C-alpha cells in the first residue's frame, strides 16, 4: 500500500476545505479543523497501474503566514497551494507561505489551485497574466470547489508528480 501525505496550504477562506470536501467523502467532521487545526481525509487514486492512497491534510488557514503551522507539513510528499482567484492578494501571500513551508519540507512536488473559477465576474487574475504573482515554478490549475471543475485534475496531477519525484 503506497501512501502519500498531501498538505493543503493557503490563506483562510480560499476554499481548501471545500476542495477536499468536493474530492472525497470525509469521515471526520469539519469541526476538527477549528479544534486541532487540521483535518485528514484520504482518497485512493490510480497512477498508472499503481494504486496510491492520498492522505489529505487540510490545514486551517490563517490570515498571515506567521502562524501557518510548520509541524503539520513535516514529511509531506506533496503540497497543494490554494488561492482565491477573486482575491488577488491570496495568490501573493502564497509566496510567503511557500518560503515557510519549503523551509520545513524542502522542494517537493506542488500544485497551485486557483480556486473559485466559477465566480468569473469577480475574477481578478488575467487569463494570460504575463508575470503572475505567487509561488515560483508551481504548476497552476484553475478550480472550482463549487462546480468541481479542475478539482480531480489537481489531485491527480499532484499524485502523479509525487510518483515521479525521485526524492519522495
Amino acid at each position, binding site marked *: 500500500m503506497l*501512501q502519500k501525505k498531501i498538505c493543503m496550504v493557503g490563506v483562510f477562506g480560499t476554499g481548501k476545505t471545500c476542495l477536499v470536501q468536493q474530492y472525497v467523502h470525509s469521515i471526520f467532521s469539519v469541526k476538527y479543523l477549528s479544534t486541532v487545526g487540521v483535518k485528514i481525509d484520504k482518497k485512493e487514486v490510480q497512477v498508472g497501474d499503481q494504486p496510491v492512497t492520498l492522505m489529505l491534510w487540510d490545514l486551517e488557514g490563517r490570515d498571515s503566514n506567521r502562524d501557518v503551522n510548520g509541524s503539520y507539513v513535516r514529511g509531506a510528499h506533496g503540497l497543494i497551494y490554494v488561492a482565491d482567484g477573486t482575491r488577488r492578494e491570496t495568490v501573493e501571500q502564497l509566496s510567503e507561505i511557500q518560503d515557510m513551508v519549503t523551509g520545513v519540507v524542502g522542494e517537493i512536488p506542488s500544485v497551485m489551485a486557483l480556486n473559485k473559477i466559477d465566480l468569473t465576474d469577480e475574477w481578478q487574475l488575467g487569463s494570460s497574466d504575463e508575470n503572475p504573482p505567487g509561488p515560483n515554478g508551481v504548476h497552476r490549475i484553475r478550480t472550482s470547489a463549487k462546480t468541481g471543475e479542475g478539482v480531480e485534475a489537481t489531485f491527480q496531477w499532484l499524485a502523479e508528480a509525487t510518483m515521479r519525484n525521485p526524492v519522495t
Partner: protein
Amino acid sequence: MTLDPHENVANGEKPVAEFAALRRLLVGPEQRRLQELSEEIEARELTAAELADHLPEAIALRGSRDRQLGRALGPTIETALRESIRRNPREMATAIFPILGPAIRKAIAEAMAGLVRSINNAVDQSLSVRGLKWRVEAWRTGVPYPDIVIKHALVYRVEQVFLVHAETGLLLEHVSAPDLSVPDADLISGMLTAIQDFVRDSFRPAEGAMLRTFSVGEHTVQVEAGPQALLAIVVRGQAPDTLLRRQQDTLETVHLEFASQLTNFSGEALPFEPARPLLEGCLETVLTTTQPGAPRRLRWLRWAVPLFLIVAVIGGLYVRSALRWGRALATLRAEPGVVVVDASRGWRRWSISGMKDPVAREPSAVLAAAGLSSRALSGTWESYLSLDSAIVIARATRSLGLTSTAAVSLRSDTLFVSGVVPLEAFARARQGGLPPGIAGVDLRSASPVLPAALESLRQSIDAELVQFEPGSSELPQASMTRLTTFASRLRQLNDGVAALGASTRLVLTGRTDPTGADETNTALAQRRVDRVAGLLALSGVDTSRLILDAVATARPLPADDPAERARINRSVSFAVTVSADHRTARGQ
C-alpha cells in the same frame, strides 16, 4: 668476551683474527647503534596500508596489556561524540534508542515490581469464590461463561495497534482484535500524529515531551514515540504498566529490525508487513482470572476445583447408579411371577438371574415402566409356575381366553368371573384342564358373548319381523318362504351355540295394532304366535326351545307415525337368548 691472542696463530690466521677483535673493540658500540638505527628506519617505513592491516590487532594487543590506550583515546572520543551529538542529535538518539530504552526501563521496573505484585495479590484473593459465582450465573442465565467473565472480569483488552511513521503520520502497519474491523486506520493514524503536533504547538511542552495517553469513554489511547515511528495502542479497560513496557519493547524492536525501512520510507507500507506479528504481540485480553502472579496458597484451587468437580461427578454417578440398582432389584422382587435368585452389578452392566413365570411381565418391561433404563441390564431367566394370586389370575385369564370386559377374582382356589365373557370361556371352564392354582371357575355372574359369526347371526334373527294383515293371522306365501330360510338360520345358530356347550332359546312375541277389543286382540296375538311357531316346527325347529309370548298391545314396537306403528305391531318378533352351562369341572 675474552680475547685469546693465541687461538688462531697456530694455523696462520692470526693477523685476521686480531684485526677483527680490534675492530670489535673499537667500533662495536657504534656498530650496534647502527644496527638499531637501521631497524628503526625500517619500522618507520610501515605504510598506511600496513598500518591499517595491523591497527585492530595492535589495539587489541595493547588493550589486553593495560588501559593506557583507552585513557589516551578517551578525551578525543568524548570530544568527537559531543561534536556529533551537537550537530545531529536525532542521529544519535536513533542509534542508541533501542539500547538505552530497555536499560532505563529495567531500572524503573525493579522499583515498580513490588507495587505491582501487591496489587495482583489483592485481585487474585477473591478469584475462586467469584469464579464459582460466575459459573453459577452462566449456568443460570444461559449466557456463555466467557461472556460472563468478560462482563465482570475484563481488566483490559488491547484492541488496536497502530505503527505510525513519525514524520509523515502515515500508517505503516495496523492490527486489531479479531472481532474488530477498523476501516479507516490510516486516517486515525494521521489524526494521531496531527493531535501530537497540535498538543506540542499548543502547550509548547519541554523538548521531546508529548501526549502519551488520552481516554475516550472506556478506551484509552496510549502513544509511545520513537525517533522514527510511533506505536499507538487502543486499550479498553485498565492498562497495567506491563503493557506500556511491552509497547516500548515492541517499538524498540521495530526500530531495530526495520531501521533502514524506516529511514527510507517514502509512502510504501509494504516493507512493514513483517512487523505484524510483533504488533500482534501487543494485542491481548487480560481478565482478573488470567492475570499472572496468583498467590501460591490459592493456586491449588486451580486444580482442586476441577478435581473436586470430577470426584463429585463420579461419586454422584456412582450413588445414582447404586440407587437405581437398588430400585431395580426392589421393583423386580415386588413383581409377581418373578423371583430374583442372583444379581450382580458391574460398573456399567447389570446382570440378574432368576425364575420367571411365563405369564409374568418381561423384567426389562417392568424396569422400563419403573423408569429404569433396560439398556444396562442383562437377565437370565428360568421358567417356573408361580402360585402368586396375580399370576394365577393372569394365567387363568389367558387360558380361558377372557378379555378385559371380564372382572376376575380369586377366592381360595376358585376363580370368580363376572362381566361379559366369551361363550368359549364357558366351554373351556367346563371341559376341565384348568390352569395350576385353580380348582374351579364360577361363571354365574358372567354373561356370555357369542363369537362374532354367531353374534351376527343372532342379530339377524332378532331383527326379523313377520307381519300380518289387519285382524288376520294368515300369512302370505312370500312370508312363508321367508320363514323357511329363517328357520334354517335359527338351526344354524342353535348348532353353533350347542357346539360351544350352550343352548339358545327363541322368544316369539305376538302383537296386534291397538284397534279392537283387548280380548279379541289377545286372541289374535296368540293365533299369530301359534301360526309362526307352527310353521317353524314344520321347518324342523325344536319347539321345546320356543317360548311363545302373546303380548297383543301391551309392549308395542315403537314408531313415531301412528299408522306405521299400527302396521309394524301387527306382527310376530323374535329374540334369541343364549344360556351357557355354568357347571364347571371341579376337583382335578
